[in-house]
């Protein structure tokens, strides 16, 4: 590395322009709404292809609509910098877009510097990173990593009953084309991603950069208590089969288990459906959606199994029927130690206040880590807010994060 490359910095104004150009599409007051494979999301990708071409990159769209832009210089395996441009409904301005815009800016900065690249740099906007439309997230990166095939995704349905297979067929994507999007690990030298933290840790500690060492995964449980609907006035307390009081016990048990009994996990009962949900009827059926996350597969498994045991005990004690199942179980991912050290070194030498941390949320890096050594940087989210129109990250922090990623990309690609 020469002095010149160490001094190389991204163009802040141009990065801001790129961010504005992408977030203009699907702007909702302060936030953004570009749900996967909707017109808004596709228009944002269309804008991105224009920006990539303007940046002198070779553009390609694969079978699931992932958008790629490669530098013309360099050869062999690529250093990929990726993230996504889709959002949750009523999402924020920074989630995903920051990583894609920074990637493009990094590629442009390097191309303009005249530095010789050994490896091509490839920018990527992965499709459907957010699970909000089809119930499954990181679809684009999972297909690239070979974890999902056309068959796995074609039947996924959104809340209107539209199948992902049909949506992709409209884009002219056949099974063969979708499956050809899988890429061989040998095509990659490394994968890097810059993302907003989406949590409060960096801000509360006054740090500017989070070097991600591992990405937690979730186990999702669906638990249904099947009690009996009775008149709320005429049924004595001891003769009821109240599904909601049973569910309430379990909700508190999830908190207890994840707080006190198993270390290193977080657990949330994020959804509850009560039937018939009437004030004068004893609740008959309650369905809970439980999300347990950890970077330790064993701890996550232990917590999930304690939750299921607890549900059985409640069901027995209260004589209420139980249906419980694990609907999703993902493996946590450890990110590449060398890249973590590389990031730490860059933060130290640039004086950026940083910490090594885990990611509680899933990201495309989690899928890419299965096929190539991967690294991820976080920048602070104001008040920890994300998936919210009030999501905010200071442009100074975006710039700092992009410059740290630029240095990492230079070290890996030259």
């Amino acid at each position, binding site marked *: 590395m020469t002095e010149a490359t160490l001094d190389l910095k991204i163009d802040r104004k141009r990065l801001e322009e790129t961010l504005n150009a992408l977030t203009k599409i699907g702007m909702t007051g302060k936030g953004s709404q570009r749900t996967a494979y909707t017109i808004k999301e596709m228009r944002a990708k269309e804008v991105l292809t224009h920006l990539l071409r303007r940046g002198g990159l070779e553009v390609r769209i694969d079978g699931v609509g992932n958008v790629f832009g490669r530098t013309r210089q360099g050869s062999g395996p690529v250093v990929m910098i990726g993230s996504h441009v889709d959002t949750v409904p009523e999402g924020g301005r920074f989630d995903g877009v920051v990583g894609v815009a920074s990637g493009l800016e990094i590629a442009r900065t390097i191309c303009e510097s005249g530095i010789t690249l050994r490896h091509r740099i490839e920018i990527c906007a992965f499709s459907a990173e957010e699970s909000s439309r089809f119930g499954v997230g990181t679809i684009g990166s999972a297909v690239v990593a070979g974890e999902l095939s056309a068959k796995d995704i074609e039947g996924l349905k959104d809340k209107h009953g539209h199948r992902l297979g049909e949506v992709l067929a*409209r884009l002219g994507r056949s099974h063969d084309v979708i499956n050809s999007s899988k890429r061989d690990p040998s095509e990659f030298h490394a994968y890097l991603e810059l993302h907003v933290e989406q949590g409060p840790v960096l801000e509360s500690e006054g740090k500017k950069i989070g070097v991600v060492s591992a990405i937690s995964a979730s186990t999702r449980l669906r638990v249904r208590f099947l009690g009996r609907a009775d008149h709320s006035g005429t049924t004595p307390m001891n003769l009821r089969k109240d599904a909601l009081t049973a569910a309430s016990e379990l909700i508190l048990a999830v908190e207890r288990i994840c707080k006190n009994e198993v270390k290193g996990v977080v657990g949330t009962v994020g959804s509850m459906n009560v039937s018939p949900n009437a004030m004068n009827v004893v609740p008959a059926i309650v369905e809970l959606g439980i999300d347990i996350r950890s970077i330790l597969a064993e701890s996550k498994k232990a917590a999930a199994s304690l939750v299921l045991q607890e549900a059985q005990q409640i069901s027995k004690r209260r004589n209420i029927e139980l249906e419980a199942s694990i609907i999703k179980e993902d493996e946590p991912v450890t990110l590449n130690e060398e890249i973590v050290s590389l990031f730490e070194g860059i933060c130290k030498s640039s004086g950026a206040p940083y910490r090594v941390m885990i990611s509680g949320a899933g990201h495309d890096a989690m899928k890419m880590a299965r096929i190539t050594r991967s690294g991820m940087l976080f920048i602070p989210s104001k008040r920890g807010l994300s998936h919210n129109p009030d999501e905010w990250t200071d442009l100074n922090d975006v710039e700092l994060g992009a410059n740290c990623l630029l240095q990492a990309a230079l070290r890996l690609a030259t």
Partner: protein
Amino acid sequence: MKFLVKEKRILNSKQIDELIDTLARRMLRKLAGGKSVALIGIKTRGAYLSKRLVDKLSKKLEVHHGTLDIILYRDDLNVLQEELTIGESDISFDLNGKTVVLVDDVLFTGRTVRAAIDQILDLGRPAVIYLAVLVDRGHRELPISPTFCGKKVETQRGDRVEVKLKEKDGVDEAYVISP
């Protein structure tokens, strides 16, 4: 019952050549001395037409060339029924501050041009957007008029106007087809 379809040729190959020459001349007059001119053809036939115009103009004027696929910007788009594309528009230069000339073969309701303008404005902020068309067949549904027009043709609302170009159809011709 059999319906008769009336097909009337309105332009032959020579006439199309002449119209493109005329359009190029008028454009040169208006754009000469101007910097940062970009011709953007609306796919499919507008793209070929714009290429021919660029070939003529570029001898005398520095001109960028791009193409636009407006499908994602149509006002009657049904995402679940239509064939969609991403990345088929090809504009590899900065649109900010440019003098953009949109090029299409036929101007009818004006809705395609509206879509193209909206798309252009999502991609950047040109100084000005002009419109060049080979044939204006009337029946506008939006307040849009061409800056450069090859030929005005009287048509009925239900007629179809078909321009054929060598690059796509093997021949240069235009027809009005009446049901």
